[in-house]
C-alpha cells in the first residue's frame, strides 16, 4: 500500500514535466499524424475531412530518384559531420584540459561564441562575408595571391564543404562543452597510473579517456545525430534560398521535401511526408543504437 502511494506520488511529481513533454513533443507529432490522414489544403482549409491513406500514396511520388540522391547526401552529411565533430571536439576539449593552461576561461568563452549568435545570422555572415565571390574574405585572399576568384557555393563539392564548415562552426561549441565536462569527470589517478606504465597521449586517449567518457557523451551524440540528419537551415540558407540560389544542387531530405511538397500549401500531403521522414529518422537512430549495443555486448 505504501509502495503504491509512493509510486503515485512520484508520478504526480513528474506530471508537470510529462505534461510539458506531451504538449510540446507528443501533441505536435500526433496532430501531424492526424492531419496527414486529411485533405487539409488551401481549398479545404477549415472544412477538411479524413481521407485515409491517400496522402501517403501521393507522397510516394516524392520519394523518387531525386529523393534517393538527397537521402544519400543526407547520410554522407551526417556521417562526415559526426566524425569531424567528435574528433575536433575531442582534440579541442583535450587541449582545454591541459594542466597549467593559462587563460582557460577566455578560450572557453571564445569557443562558445558561435553558439551565442543566432544561427540565421551566422549562416548569412558566412555566405556574404566569407564565401561571396565579389566581396568574400576567401576571394580577397585569392586576389592578394594573384589567383582567380572562385565561386565557392556554386559547385556541388565546394558548396558541400562550405556547408560542412559552417555547420561545424555552429555545432562544435555544444560538443566541445560536453566533451570538456566529460573529460573533467575522469578520475585523474587513472592517468597517473597510465603515465607510470609508459602510456603516451594517444594510448591514454584510446584506452582510457574515450571508454571513460563514452557513456557521458552518448546522449549528446544522439541529439547531434538527430540535429544533423534533419539539418535544413545551413544548406538551405547557404545554397537554396529562394531568390538567392547559388547554383549548387545539394539537397538533404528536408530541403528536398520542402521544395517538392511543403511549398504546395497542402498540409495533409506535407504532413504525410513529414511522418514518413519522422519514421525514417526513428528507424535510422534505432538502428545505430542497436549496432552500438551489439558492439558493447
Amino acid at each position: 500500500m505504501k509502495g503504491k502511494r509512493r509510486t503515485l506520488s512520484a508520478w504526480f511529481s513528474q506530471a508537470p514535466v510529462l505534461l510539458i513533454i506531451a504538449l510540446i513533443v507528443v501533441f505536435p507529432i500526433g496532430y501531424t499524424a492526424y492531419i496527414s490522414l486529411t485533405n487539409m489544403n488551401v481549398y479545404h482549409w477549415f472544412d477538411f475531412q479524413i481521407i485515409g491513406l491517400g496522402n501517403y500514396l501521393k507522397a510516394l511520388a516524392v520519394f523518387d530518384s531525386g529523393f534517393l540522391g538527397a537521402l544519400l547526401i543526407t547520410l554522407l552529411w551526417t556521417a562526415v559531420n559526426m566524425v569531424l565533430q567528435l574528433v575536433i571536439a575531442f582534440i579541442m576539449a583535450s587541449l582545454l584540459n591541459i594542466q597549467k593552461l593559462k587563460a582557460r576561461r577566455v578560450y572557453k568563452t571564445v569557443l562558445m561564441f558561435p553558439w551565442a549568435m543566432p544561427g540565421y545570422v551566422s549562416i548569412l555572415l558566412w555566405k556574404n562575408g566569407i564565401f561571396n565571390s565579389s566581396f568574400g574574405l576567401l576571394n580577397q585572399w585569392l586576389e592578394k595571391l594573384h589567383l582567380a576568384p572562385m565561386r565557392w557555393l556554386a559547385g556541388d563539392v565546394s558548396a558541400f564543404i562550405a556547408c560542412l564548415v559552417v555547420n561545424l562552426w555552429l555545432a562544435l561549441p555544444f560538443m566541445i562543452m560536453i566533451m570538456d565536462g566529460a573529460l573533467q569527470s575522469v578520475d585523474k589517478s587513472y592517468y597517473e597510473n597510465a603515465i607510470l606504465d609508459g602510456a603516451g597521449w594517444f594510448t591514454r586517449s584510446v584506452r582510457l579517456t574515450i571508454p571513460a567518457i563514452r557513456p557521458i557523451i552518448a546522449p549528446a551524440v544522439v541529439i547531434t545525430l538527430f540535429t544533423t540528419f534533419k539539418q535544413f537551415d545551413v544548406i538551405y540558407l547557404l545554397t537554396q534560398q529562394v531568390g538567392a540560389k547559388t547554383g549548387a544542387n545539394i539537397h538533404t531530405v528536408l530541403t528536398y521535401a520542402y521544395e517538392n511538397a511543403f511549398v504546395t500549401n497542402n498540409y495533409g500531403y506535407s504532413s504525410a511526408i513529414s511522418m514518413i521522414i519522422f519514421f525514417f529518422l526513428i528507424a535510422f537512430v534505432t538502428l545505430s543504437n542497436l549496432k552500438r549495443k551489439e558492439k558493447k555486448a
Partner: protein
Amino acid sequence: MKRIFALTLSALLLCTPFSACVKPAEEGGSAAQSVTLTIWHDKEDAVAAALQSELDKLQPEIRVVLEKKNGLTEALKMVGNDPKAAPDLYFFAHDKLGVYAEMGILTPITEFVDADTLAQFLPMTLSAATYKGELYQLPIYFETLLFMYNRANMREDQVPATTEQLYAYMEEVTGGGHYGFLEQHSNAYYSAGWIHGFGGELINADGVPQLNTEQTIRALEYHLRFARLMTGESEYATVNTLFKEGRAAATIGGPWLIPTVREAGIDLGLAPMPIVDETGLPLAPYSGVQGLHVLKVAAENPAKHEAIKAVLHQLCNTDIGVAMAAASGCAPAFAACYELDEVKNDEMVMMMHALAQSAVPMPNIPEMDVMWNVVGNMLVDINMRKVNVREAADKAQKQAENLIAAMK
C-alpha cells in the same frame, strides 16, 4: 511537510497551462459610441504612420489600431477565421489574396465601396486585386521594378532604349570587377520582366504553368546572353552592393532600393525599361499592389460593418496617396493623385506611374505560390549550371504541374 510542499507545487505547475483557457474579459469602453478596428500589416514605419494618421481622422467614433505582424501570411492562415484572434482588416500585397479567398476568410471590397468610387483607381491596381471576378482589396499604392543607372558611369546618351543597346553597352564596359548592367538574373521576380517582354508568362490565369512555351524559351535564351555578362551570384545583397559601390553602371531594382542608393552617394538616374528589339515590347516586370483586405469574420459582425465601410471610404481620396508618396516614394493607386504637383514632381513615383501601363500584376492565384521556387531552379539551371534551355524549361514545367496537382 516537504512532500506536501512538493505535491502542491506540482499541482500548481499542472494548472499553469490551463490558465490560458480563461474567458477573456469583455472589452471596456463605451462600445455603442466607439468601434475599434484592428489592421495587421508588415510595412515600414513611415508607411504605417501615414496610414495611421489618415485613419485617426475617424476618431473618436472609430479607433483604428495598426498592428505590425511578423509572418503575417502564415498567421492569417492559422487564425483567419477565428473572430477572437483574427484582425478585422490586413494591409498587404495583392498576390496572396487568391489563397485567402479560396480559404474563405476574405470578403469582397464591393460590399463596402461602390463601383463609381472604385472607378477612380488605376485599372492595373483593380485588376491585380480581382480574383475569380471578385475584388478583394482596396488598392492604396503599388510598386514595380525600375531601370536605374549611375550617372557617374553611364552618360545620358548611353542610357539604352533597347535591349540590344544595353547588351552592346555591357560588352563594352564589363570587366575587371566592373559591370555594365546587373540584376538578380536567376530570381523569378526579376526575370519575369524579360519573359513578359517576349510575350511569355510564368503561369496563365487558369493556373497552368507556361514555362516551356516558345515565347518563354526564346526569352530565356535571350536573357542568358545578358546573364553571362553579370556576376555569378545573383542575390539581392551582391547585386545591390555592387551598384551602390559604383561597380555596376545600371541595374533593375525596386523603389525600396533608392533611399540606400542615394545615401551611398550615387547620382541616380531613372529610365524607362528597354524595349526588346525582337518583339518591340518593353521589359515588363511584375507589379505588387499594396492595399486593405477585409476579413470575413469582421464583415459578418454587424457592430463593425459600418466602421469598416468608413475606414475604406476614408482611403478613397488623394490624401492617403499623397501622404504615402511623400513618406516612402510609393506610387498611389488613386488616379487623381497624379494630377497633383506633390506627386507630379516626384520623379520616381511618376516613373512607376508610367510603368504601370506595361507592368504585369503578380498573379494572385494560389498556384503561383509553387512557381517562385520552380522558376528559380529553372533559371539557376540555365544561367549558372549551363543546362540546355529547352531541357531546363521542360523539367521545370513538369515539376510545376506536379506541384500544382499536389496542391489539391
